[in-house]
């Protein structure tokens, strides 16, 4: 302690001699703890001698005195409150509104995570069909550590551009191939993680935009189907909707589902970026009659999503399972995974070659991917980010000479045209995004997807919160988002001298060698 410029503030020693201004909590606490009852007495006196109405204040301060007494002498859980009393509440109060304060006032436009205000604003503007051009200059860094796109000296004129078209299942020459004409797909989000309004708004928007939507692993896609858009049915490790009671595949149910005209493809999910190698548990309290029916699980007991499909324990059984699903569904069948180990992936591909069985597409989900709920350690530390994994996957597929046997898709914060182009150049055939579409629906990144309290009614089943999400209006936003993404996609493609996505190559991307290649 060197000097005392103010009564309640002092310069205190802090971390190796660095000094900082600190509030002298102990002294302020003593003052408050005396002041509260003293004020009660004061008002009591005023009430007695001057006017009885002062006792309204007497009563209030008596109440505060009692609360303070409770904090200091009764409760034992909160150290600060026990030591300092009600004034320490300030800390809890201010701390509890910290995230909001930071988001509203202090966070800069480029620093919020997972998506900065800048990134979100672009999606909002595209969804609202507002001009998303910017002036004066970029707000991002240019330190050679960033991934950048390389344009061409010779942009392609509009009339020479070829329309985007990717056909799944063409490699196997199956009857029910599926063709997309825009490179965007709504990534897996289950009914369960999303409420019904959000699901229907996305589905209606997808229909209007002419893109498919992945159902997520929430079982029978009742709400998705209401809007008549093209669907990719996702089969999670618990196989909700197409399972036997022991968690194995029920061929009959899958066959019946695959026959529905809206179901265009099947996706077997092995893992996802937010929680690679982690299963899940659906607690029995959350299993309503509807969820039990849609997911095909019994009521009254917890349902476990295992970390892997029961049928898949090694490369051989995994490839055999893919083949089995292809045979049963008679549709294009893809797999989804977050990339982990190179040797394992290569072994899987070699096994595919051996059995002459290839999924119709592989989706690589980056470790930066989102989820309704996952343990923090998995979300933060597990799996490879998309711009690291995608080039490796593409390389292995080429080295094994099977890149032409399947399509490659990817996800992981690919919500803006620049990032999407990067992924396409690094080898992807199409882009999956989940949170991009959530933002288009009006997501404000409140980070409460696991709490049923989503303030914008997306990841909640509470009718009170869902009321604000009007399907009709938000479906338009979804369609606008796709339309404006497509516009930027075409312009950027032209700027890189490419007539179609097929002309893109990793040469179009500047990948800094030692950079953290995260989106």
């Amino acid at each position, binding site marked *: 302690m060197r000097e005392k410029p103010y009564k309640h503030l002092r310069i205190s020693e802090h971390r190796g001699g660095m000094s900082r201004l600190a509030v002298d909590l102990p002294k302020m606490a003593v003052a408050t703890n005396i002041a509260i009852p003293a004020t009660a007495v004061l008002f*009591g006196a005023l*009430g*007695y001698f001057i*006017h*009885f*109405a002062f*006792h*309204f204040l*007497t*009563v*209030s301060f*008596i*109440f505060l005195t009692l*609360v303070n007494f*409770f*904090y200091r002498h009764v*409760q034992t*859980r*909160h150290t600060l*409150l026990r030591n300092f009393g009600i004034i320490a*509440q300030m800390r*809890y*109060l201010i701390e*509890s509104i910290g995230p909001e304060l930071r988001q509203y006032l202090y966070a800069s436009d480029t620093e919020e995570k997972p998506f900065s205000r800048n990134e979100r604003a672009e999606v909002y503007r595209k969804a609202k069909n507002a001009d998303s051009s910017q002036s004066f200059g970029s707000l991002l860094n240019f330190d050679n550590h960033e991934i950048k796109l390389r344009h061409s000296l010779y942009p392609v004129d509009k009339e020479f551009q070829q329309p985007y078209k990717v056909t799944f299942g063409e490699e196997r020459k199956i009857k029910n191939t599926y063709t997309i004409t825009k490179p965007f797909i709504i990534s897996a989000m289950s009914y369960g993680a999303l409420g019904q309004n959000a699901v229907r708004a996305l589905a209606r928007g997808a229909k209007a935009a002419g893109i498919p939507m992945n159902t997520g692993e929430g079982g029978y896609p009742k709400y998705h189907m209401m809007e008549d858009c093209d669907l990719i049915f996702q089969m999670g490790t618990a196989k909700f909707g197409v399972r036997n009671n022991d968690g194995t595949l029920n061929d009959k149910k899958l066959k019946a589902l695959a026959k529905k005209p809206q179901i265009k493809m099947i996706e077997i999910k092995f893992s996802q970026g937010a929680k690679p190698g982690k299963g899940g548990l659906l607690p029995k309290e959350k299993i309503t009659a509807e969820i039990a029916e849609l997911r095909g699980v019994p009521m009254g007991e917890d349902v476990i999503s295992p970390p892997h499909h029961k049928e898949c324990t090694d490369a051989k059984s995994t490839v055999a399972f893919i083949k089995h699903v292809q045979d049963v569904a008679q549709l294009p069948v893809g797999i989804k995974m977050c990339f982990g180990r190179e040797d394992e992936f290569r072994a899987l591909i070699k096994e595919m070659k051996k059995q002459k069985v290839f999924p119709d597409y592989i989706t690589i989900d980056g470790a930066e991917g989102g989820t309704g709920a996952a343990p923090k350690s998995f979300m933060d530390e597990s799996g490879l980010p998309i711009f690291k994994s995608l080039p490796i996957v593409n390389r292995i597929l080429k080295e094994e000479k099977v890149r032409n046997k399947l399509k490659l898709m990817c996800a992981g914060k690919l919500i803006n045209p620049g990032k999407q182009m990067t992924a396409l150049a690094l080898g992807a055939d199409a882009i999956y995004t989940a949170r991009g579409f959530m933002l288009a629906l009006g997501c404000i990144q409140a980070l409460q997807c696991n709490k049923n309290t989503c303030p914008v009614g997306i990841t909640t089943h509470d009718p009170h919160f869902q009321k604000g999400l009007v399907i009709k209006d938000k479906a338009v936003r979804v369609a606008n988002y796709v339309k404006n993404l497509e516009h930027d996609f075409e312009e950027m493609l032209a700027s890189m001298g490419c007539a179609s996505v097929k002309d893109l190559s990793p040469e179009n991307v500047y990948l800094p060698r030692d950079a953290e290649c995260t989106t």
Partner: protein
Amino acid sequence: MNVKTIITWIFQIIPAVILLQTLRFKFTADPMSVEIFTALGMEPWGRILIGILELIAGILLLTPRAVLGAVLAFGVMVGAIIGHVSILGVTGQHGPLFLMAVATLICSAIVIHLRRTQLPLFGKTME
């Protein structure tokens, strides 16, 4: 419904009934009520204001937001007791009213204690 819930509700219903059934004296300007508030120097506005506060408290005590009603009732009753002790007297003519105030105070204090985690602002740190 477990025992604790039932007990909590009993302690909510008692003060709610006391509060609500005395309201008619305040709102109909019963001579005794007028006399009390004249003595406190708050006639008629205090009588109406306290009546409204008691009405809100009584209703809230019968809803899931009971803790708010209990806090309100607690506050009004502390005020009432101060009134009795300092001006109106605790025995004699106003004695029964004083006892009712004490009973309501105790009941609402118990409700506050049992439901303290539901208090706004303070609740989270009151386990």
